Structure formats: structure tokens, C-alpha cells
């Protein structure tokens, strides 16, 4: 790269190689880096994707780090201009990419420990990166528990994958929906109703959670009630990350920049920030 012409705002081209519909509004996209290199991300990080002419937006990486592949995945809900344009793309299309950016789940801390993964709604998407990284190194971790909460059965994503996980024996899977329909036979209620069902060893359990803004305080309170310490709880927070460089100011949580200080935070580090949870 010509360092004279370097600018952190310039994306590099990546190519869409696969597109799978996950629900009415959510689609999984697999991209390939045109430079042939692996993305070299860590679980929990995000990228800024550009659909040129429409705009740029941040997306969590939903695939685990891969040393040998130059592909990575995101899963996106169609909700605005950029996500709408992304959904209109077909394999072979190119987009711009910046990143990976931000902090990640401290997997090394989780080694030898039990890990509880709490995924509310689309929160499963970034957590997949952590989940499959851990499953690939399954022997290095203790018990693994996955809790998935969705508003309605028809909004569930990665349904087959989660069913396979439940059957695999590598991980205990607990699922719930807030508003059941006739097809739903499982647990009903918000995600916190799952916590009493898992017998956790609070001193030995790390928690990773991602979900809608409203979810965190309730799940955290429930974890604390179980005796899990604040420094064993990791959350990934969403804000309007625009520049990804800690400059533009949109993603601030008090004085923290979510894009460089986060999106993954240890709860101890943000407990005192009024704008965090």
C-alpha cells in the first residue's frame, strides 16, 4: 500500500459469494476478500460495509475467525437503506469493506471455564462467531450453555443450526419465544425465564450476551442473582457506529467510543456508565 495515499476511510473490495434467507427479514451473506487474505477478525468484532451509492453501515461478523479462508459471514435484518441495498445484491456483486474494528470476546479468559451464551433476537448473529470458535476448540472449555430468545417463532433464525447444536451434545441449548403460535412447543417467556433452568456454577461461569437494548439489564440482574460476578459478564453493545475510528462521535456511551472501546465490554468496565445498559 502506498502509505502516502493511506486513508482509514477507504474501503477495500469484497465479493458476495453466497446469500441465504434466514427469516422474512434476515439474510445471511458470505463474502470473500478480493485480496485473498483471511479477514483476521476476533469473535465479537464488526466490519463497516459499503454499498456504494447508498452508504456504509456497521455489521457484526457472524462467522468464527478462519486462518485459511478469505471468506466471512454477516447476517443482516432488512430495515434501512444500506441493509435494503444489501438484500438486493446477488452473488458476484462487490461491496466495500473496512475493518474488522472494535474489541472482542476474551476467549482466552474463557479457557477451562463454563461459558453461558445468551442470545436475544439478532444477538445470535455476533455470538455465532464466539460460539463456533469455541466449538472448534471444544476441549479447551468447560460446560457450554446457549440460551436463545426470540419474540415470535417465525422470527427465529438459524433454526436448523441451533437444532443441530442441541443434538450434538457439545453444548446445552435452551430456547424460548415471547409470543408463541400454534407450532411452538417449547418454553414461553422472555429470555430471563431460561436462566433458572440452567444450573450454573457461578464462580466458574463466564457469560457472553448480545441482544436488544432492553435485554441487558434484566439478564445481567438475573446473572448477578445467581452469583456470577460482574467481571465474568461480557456484553456487546450496539450504537450508531459511523466512522469506526473513534472520531465521529455517534457511538458514544458517556465517554466511551463503542467502535474502539467496544462493542464488547466487560460489565465491570461499564457498570458505572449511565448510558451503557
Amino acid at each position: 500500500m502506498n502509505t502516502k495515499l493511506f486513508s482509514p476511510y477507504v474501503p477495500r473490495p469484497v465479493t458476495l459469494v453466497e446469500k441465504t434467507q434466514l427469516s422474512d427479514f434476515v439474510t445471511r451473506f458470505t463474502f470473500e476478500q478480493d485480496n485473498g487474505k483471511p479477514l483476521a477478525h476476533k469473535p465479537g468484532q464488526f466490519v463497516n460495509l459499503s454499498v456504494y451509492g447508498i452508504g456504509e453501515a456497521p455489521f457484526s461478523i457472524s462467522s468464527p475467525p478462519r486462518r485459511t479462508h478469505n471468506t466471512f459471514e454477516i447476517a443482516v435484518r432488512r430495515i434501512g437503506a444500506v441493509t435494503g441495498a444489501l438484500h438486493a445484491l446477488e452473488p458476484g456483486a462487490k461491496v466495500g469493506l473496512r475493518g474488522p474494528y472494535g474489541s472482542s470476546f476474551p476467549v482466552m479468559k474463557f479457557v477451562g471455564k463454563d461459558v453461558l451464551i445468551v442470545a436475544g433476537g439478532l444477538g445470535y448473529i455476533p455470538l455465532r462467531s464466539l460460539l463456533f470458535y469455541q466449538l472448534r476448540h471444544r476441549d479447551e472449555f468447560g460446560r457450554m450453555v446457549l440460551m436463545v430468545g426470540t419474540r415470535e417463532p417465525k422470527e427465529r433464525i438459524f433454526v436448523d443450526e441451533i437444532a443441530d447444536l442441541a443434538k450434538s451434545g457439545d453444548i446445552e441449548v435452551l430456547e424460548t419465544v415471547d409470543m408463541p403460535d400454534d407450532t411452538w412447543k417449547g418454553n414461553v417467556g422472555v429470555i430471563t425465564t431460561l436462566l433458572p433452568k440452567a444450573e450454573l456454577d457461578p464462580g466458574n461461569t463466564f457469560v457472553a450476551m448480545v441482544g436488544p437494548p432492553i435485554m441487558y439489564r434484566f439478564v445481567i440482574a438475573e446473572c448477578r442473582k445467581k452469583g456470577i460476578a460482574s467481571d465474568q459478564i461480557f456484553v456487546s453493545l450496539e450504537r450508531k457506529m459511523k466512522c469506526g475510528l473513534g472520531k465521529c462521535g455517534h457511538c458514544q456511551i458517556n465517554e466511551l467510543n463503542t467502535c474502539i472501546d467496544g462493542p464488547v465490554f466487560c460489565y465491570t468496565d461499564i457498570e458505572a456508565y449511565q448510558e451503557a445498559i
Partner: protein
Amino acid sequence: MTTYTVYKEQLPGLFEKWSQQHALHVPAKLREGFYDLVPWKKGLEIAWDFDVAYNSPKRFLLPPRETLITFNLKTCEAAPVFEAPPQILFGVHPYDVKAINQLDQLLESGAPDQNYVRRRAATVIMAFEPLTVSPAAFWATVGAATAAHGYDLYWTKIGPAAFTVEVGSVRGEELLAMGGPLLLSTAGDKEGARRAKARILFKARRSGLRYNWEETPRLLAKCWDSPLWRRYSQMCLACGSCNLVCPTCYCFDIREEADDLLEEGIRYREWDGCMLESFAKVAGNHNFRPKAQDRYRHRYFRKGKYIYDKIGELGCVGCGRCVRACTAGIANPLKVFNELWEETVHEH
């Protein structure tokens, strides 16, 4: 530090020479009570006694709209765009120099903002000691009466037709030398400059904080739940004027547009403001600061605490621009900080 004495009669010649290689901006009166830095041209009357340039100098370093990249919609290739015209800002008051120093630190930290860095490198700052103080200003009490660095030359008017010029950089000295042989300031001239500075400082101190400015972050830490935020913010029009005129506000949005044929396009940044309703709104319409109160408090916390915690200086340099720009009369860091101090005085 080398100090030279320069006479008013030398200025037209210097300006003429400088403006051949630089865009030269100097303070001028636009209308009664409104001053700004404007492009210099022959015969322009310089407003030596301007109290504040109503538009802050950040626009020269971080323009209201600035192209960051160009892209091709077909190939998805993008290239950086750098514009860094050589420019001289003549007549920047010390509090604005402080503000620029702050932008330097914040935009150059982490992944340096190359667009800013280049513009800054091409910009010569000629500081000028104020002769009058804006009624809304309080820079003397927030540690912004002097700038220790960040200028190339520092001009102080020591008489009707004479200035001392302190050298801040080699580049500044070379520019000054373009006018011919330099005259080192005498002890008397330097004393004159000292007095001029003391005189204006005395005037500026008439309005100020009731406490030491370094206490501000600790004060704010106690005031998250103060009723003041609601009391003031209920009148906020969410217009963002305070953000626009603020010399230290640098938040920006990134947008883009494509040409008619959807072949080429540009991505640019535009000033944004944390007081605008949609500033922290994400896709799906969740707003992380939905209330005017949240946004108003955030701005004061940035000025009084967050920036301080990062760089050890207040994010407010006391220029008073927001006080004047605010239609609702609620933007007033001095008043806000003083009232919070009063509110918590029983705790001190």
C-alpha cells in the same frame, strides 16, 4: 523564544507576499458586532479589536463538508481524496488556538484522521492577543487565556502601529522574514506585550467560573441527576447551533452521492451535532438519547468531563459563541457550570 517587533506599515507588504502562496484569512467586521476571518484582499480593513470571530476556525481544518473518498460503483474501487490548500489564519485568538490544539490531539489520536492531519499541516496559525472581550466570553477562567503552543507566530499589539511577534515555528519565522530584515524586540517592547496581555486578562476575568476550572469534571460527576438538565433542555429547539459554532465540536456524519449514471460517486463527511434529535438513533429507530435532556447533558459532559478525562483540558474554551448562537438562550457553559456548583455547594 525569539520575539520580533513588526510595524503596521510592514503588514500590507507581508500580506501581499503571503497571499501569493497561501489563502490568507484575516479578521474583518461583517456588520456591527459581527466579525469573522475573511479572505484578505488589498485595502481590506483589519478589525484589530474584534471580540470573537462568529464562525470558529475549525472550518478551515474540518470543513463543514469534506470529500473523503471517491468510488466506482461498478468496480467497487475507492480512492482517498485529500485537499490541503496552504492557508494562513491571521488573527486567531488564544482560546481558538487552544481549541485547535484540542482538535489536533483528538483527531490525530488512535487511527489518525489523514484528511485533518494534512489540512492542519498546511495551515499556518498566526495567533493574535485579543483587544476586546466578547460579553459572552469567559475564556480567562477556563484555562484558555493563553496558548503555550499550536501557533506559528503570536502577535500582540503593543501600540497604535506596533506589534511584538513571538515565534512558534521555523515556518512562522520564515514567513515573517519575507518582509525583509527582522527587528528583535527590545525589552521595552516585550514589556509592552506583557502589559497588553495583562490588560486583556484583567478585562476577561470580570466574567467567570466561581470555582477553579479543573474542578469541573469532579463537579459534573456529581451532577448526572441534577434537575438543571431538564430545566434548561425543556426549551431546547434541537437545532444544533451550539454544535456548529463551537470551536471544539468535531462530530461528523458520513454521507455519499453518486452521479447521474450511477458510475462514480463521492463519500463525504458533514458536520453533525449531538444536540440533533437523530444523532444517536440507529437502524430500527431505537434512539439512545431520545430526550433533549439526554442530549443537552451529553454535550456538557463532553465539554466538562469526557474531553478532560482524555486530554486534561476542558472541552470548552470559553469563547461564548454558543451563548450567542442559542435561540432559546440555554446554551451557556458558564451559567450551567456555575449553577451546578451552587447546587452542590453544600457538598464541597
